[in-house]
């Protein structure tokens, strides 16, 4: 029993609208993942470059 659905198959089928419902939720998941990954990537790239710059500056001293 899963809320309004009698079985998992029923839940996945969404009364014949399974394709539409799951496709749109997949896109929503992708948007969430994109936002998390892109900000983490931006952060990682900054620190990588900043550390390199720091090392260069320390060598010159």
């Amino acid at each position, binding site marked *: 029993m899963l809320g*309004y659905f009698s079985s998992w198959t029923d839940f996945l089928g*969404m009364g014949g609208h399974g394709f539409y419902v799951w496709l749109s939720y997949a896109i929503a998941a992708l948007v969430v993942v994109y936002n998390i990954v892109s900000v983490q990537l931006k952060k990682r790239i900054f620190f990588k470059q900043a550390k390199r710059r720091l090392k260069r500056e320390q060598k010159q001293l």
Partner: protein
Amino acid sequence: MKITMPRWFYQLASPKWFYDFTGILIPWFALASAVLLTIGTVWGLAFAPPDYQQGNSFRIIYIHVPGAILAQSCYMLMAVAGAIGLIWKIKMAHVVAKSCAPIGASMAILALASGAIWGKPTWGAWWVWDARLTSMLILFFLYLGVMALHSAFENETSGDQSSAVLALVGLVNIPIIKYSVEWWNTLHQPATFKLTEKPAMPPEMWLPLLVMIFGFYCFFGLVLMIRARTEVLERESRTSWVKAIVEERA
């Protein structure tokens, strides 16, 4: 004329203070968005009753409406932050405005894509050139325009100012999106939530939607803060406080 603002306004405008303060907020926003989005998704997908006409395809509403609301809220924040940056010459406001654009664009894609998928079983077409859909597509292009314009400038300040002006001009599209369902005959249904009226659906249907909307707002706040923090570090990379943070990490 000089307009004086309260103290917190200027504190928030200090890059270091912004970095430290958002550092405290981020874990709470992460927790809130994880909890709200999980509850909202499970509730909306399995426990909300199906629509008597649309059946289960109506469950798309739980991501479609929050995505559309966030795309518009994010645009308004971007334009207002840009205006604050232009008027008071506050660097931090431009950081926020710039960070809004890619997040808002992703929310506009979500609203458009989930709307198209929802349209197929409901209207029989993936896309119609309806006022609401078209104005939403323009919103997406405005985000792309703001991002493209900003990246066209070598100089950060010029990019900030030009994209702020474009964002402000594009603000005219926001009321058009809102009233498109009233001004023109459209296939799109009117707003689910209105401040002046009770929702047309029963609470079992709109409560999970409300949870999802709050969840999306928390998530937006979360990614906006993380994005803006990195943007601050990039712009302030020559200052001693940023160097100290980099050293600590090395």
